[in-house]
């Protein structure tokens, strides 16, 4: 009796909550760390990048004005969905990184835990980053944090799941929406993560994921006038400089690549959240 032929998954992009192929019709072959063919991933075009920005912009008013409690619950829900697909992610991380199943399991667990950690920040970041300011006069004066807007992300090439989760979660938990360029080398876990996001009550467009060439896509996003910030964590030195120069055109907030190799298993701190927060200060006179 012959072995049953597996039904393979088609890996597509994730834009506005839907899974389109690249409008360009382009794809590229993704191989395992050993060089075996895994799948053809979509190779996003400039038009795809612009569609993703438009979707992220459209999602921003609703997501940024959702209550912090609501955003926290949705991130927690993402963690729940990820946990439920643990075996699938372990297999994908083994394929992508050539690590043992045990190590891959640790990385997937850490990704779930990271989501839970950030979920809890939704209604606390304002308390540690905002302030009531004792101005020298009869005024009520309060500083609060607000999301920057639409943020582009070059995801780290290493850590196709944990690294990816670690850059997306801090952006969206505070109310930003994002367009993520997944690891070019290992994009498959990002699309599986998109399936998790799509089934976690996360509104369409809050997180958009593009696969393909970071060297092509990132500059399009860095120069896009409706993108408010860019996280260059996964960009190599040349790409990062090019993107930072392009980002100056509309004064995007830029998070530069780290100087040292990032340990994704370490405590991430609050920097990834605060890099894409704005402080708004409201004054009102006090009187009768």
């Amino acid at each position, binding site marked *: 009796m012959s072995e049953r032929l597996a039904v393979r998954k088609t890996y597509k992009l994730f834009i506005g909550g839907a899974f389109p192929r690249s409008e360009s019709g382009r794809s590229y072959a993704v191989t395992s760390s050993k060089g075996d063919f895994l799948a053809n991933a979509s190779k996003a075009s400039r038009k795809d990048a612009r569609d993703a920005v438009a979707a992220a912009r459209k999602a921003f008013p609703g997501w940024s004005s959702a209550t912090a409690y609501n955003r926290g619950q949705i991130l927690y829900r993402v963690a729940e969905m990820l946990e439920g697909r643990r075996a699938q992610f372990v297999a994908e991380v083994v394929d992508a990184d050539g690590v043992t199943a045990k190590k891959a399991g640790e990385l997937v667990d850490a990704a779930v835990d990271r989501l839970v950690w950030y979920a809890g920040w939704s209604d606390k970041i304002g308390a540690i980053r905002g*302030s009531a300011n004792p101005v020298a006069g009869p005024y009520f004066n309060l500083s609060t944090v607000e999301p920057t807007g639409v943020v582009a992300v070059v995801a780290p090439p290493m850590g196709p799941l944990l690294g990816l989760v670690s850059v997306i979660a801090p952006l969206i938990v505070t109310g930003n929406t994002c367009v993520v360029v997944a690891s070019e080398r290992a994009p498959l876990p990002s699309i599986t993560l998109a399936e998790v996001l799509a089934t976690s009550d996360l509104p369409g467009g809050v997180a958009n994921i593009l696969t393909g060439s970071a060297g092509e896509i990132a500059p399009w996003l860095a120069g896009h006038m409706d993108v408010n910030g860019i996280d260059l964590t996964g960009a190599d*030195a040349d790409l990062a400089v090019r993107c930072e*120069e392009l980002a100056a055109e509309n004064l995007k907030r830029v998070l530069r690549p780290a100087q040292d190799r990032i340990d994704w298993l370490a405590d991430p701190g609050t920097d990834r959240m605060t890099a894409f927060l704005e*402080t*708004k200060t*409201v004054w009102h006179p006090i009187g009768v």
Partner: protein
Amino acid sequence: MFEYAPAPESREIVDIKPSYGLFIGGEWVDSQGEDHHKTINPASEEVLAEVAWATEADVDRAVQAARTAFTTWSALPGSERAKYIFRIARIIQERSRELAVLETLDNGKPIRESRDVDLPLVAAHFFYYAGWADKLGYAGFGSDPRPLGVAGQVIPWNFPLLMLAWKIAPALACGNTVVLKPAETTPLTALAFAEICRQADLPPGVVNIVTGAGETGAALVNHPGVDKVAFTGSTEVGRMIARSVAGTRKKLTLELGGKAANIVFEDAALDQAVEGIVNGIFFNQGHVCCAGSRLLVQESVADEVLDALKRRLSTLRLGDPMDKNTDIGAINSAAQLAKIRELSEAGVTEGAERWSPPCPIPDRGFWFPPTVFTGVAQSHRIAREEIFGPVLSVLTFRTPAEAVEKANNTPYGLSAGIWTEKGSRILWMADRLRAGVVWANTFNRFDPTSPFGGFKESGYGREGGRHGLEAYLAV
């Protein structure tokens, strides 16, 4: 309008030298270049002094001095740094009248404003950040946050000494040393500040002042020995700086232009709102990045507000900035006056209606009367571009949602104003306005404890408050 007898402030209190060198390493030194420029009183075009325009070599010398000083300054206990900064605050208070007069002479702003707004805020800013110097471990940036190193700071001409304070006070408190370039048209109070550093016995090289124009500024921000760049000025220059630091590890904060909406609802206390509109756009001749340059007034009260506004503007007194009764002083420079004229003419050409009160203009100096444009469309240049002068563009709206839409319809996001007696509406509006500072039933208030800075193309980073420390710490 009542006739007022002249009430000029005496200029005897200031002692302006005929020429100034650069303040580097605690000493006055000559520029290595030959380029000297005259700084003038914009109200009379009288030459006040000659200042050096620092060359790349001068800037390099200043950065080296700051680098040398950094080792000891950053190693001082915070409590010792604090005492130096407190000293500076006290000397500013002691010499505040002199500094106010000097500011008004060099800048053209009314003495009433330099005396009652600028100088008190300058002293308060140093006093506030002095107190942070030994408490940085409690600021939420880790238990022992480190300074960045040498800060290169470039400031504008609209609030010369106040912008210096916003830049230098937090930098020093955090343990950085600085090289500061004042604006080319208003160098004198920064040079007076150098003397204050000497009176305070501030260690040489902790503060260095290099005068000059754009090229000096470019040499400073591009210097490889600078670890931090702080700039306040136009969005156009801000963009250039953001591009130039790409690929470096320099930390950058930018406080750039604005085109703030000042939104008046029909239920506002209209008399107060009119005062707020006047303060919003005519304070400091409108040379204010956060000026309320777009008045959005609810249609139902538009005529009433405009009538009251025009009545009020007819009582403003334009003239000698040194006169204590003057409301509107001189435009800072011929170049700025030309820009204001050009944009105002564009307003007329594009179809808006221009109005100014009858207003005698002095023969000498740079002046522009308070001006109101009605019938302004959102597409007009005067509704989109920063004029940086006493020119108000009036637009109307019907619903709160429309007010939000129009207010946010700008690449800028520095400030906004809301005038209504309904508290829930204030908060609803404040939530939706994409601006770093929102003044409700007030406008143009500043305080060292209150973070200031913009969204979008108005720049990034905050100055003031605990937030302002972040710009000068390695976090």
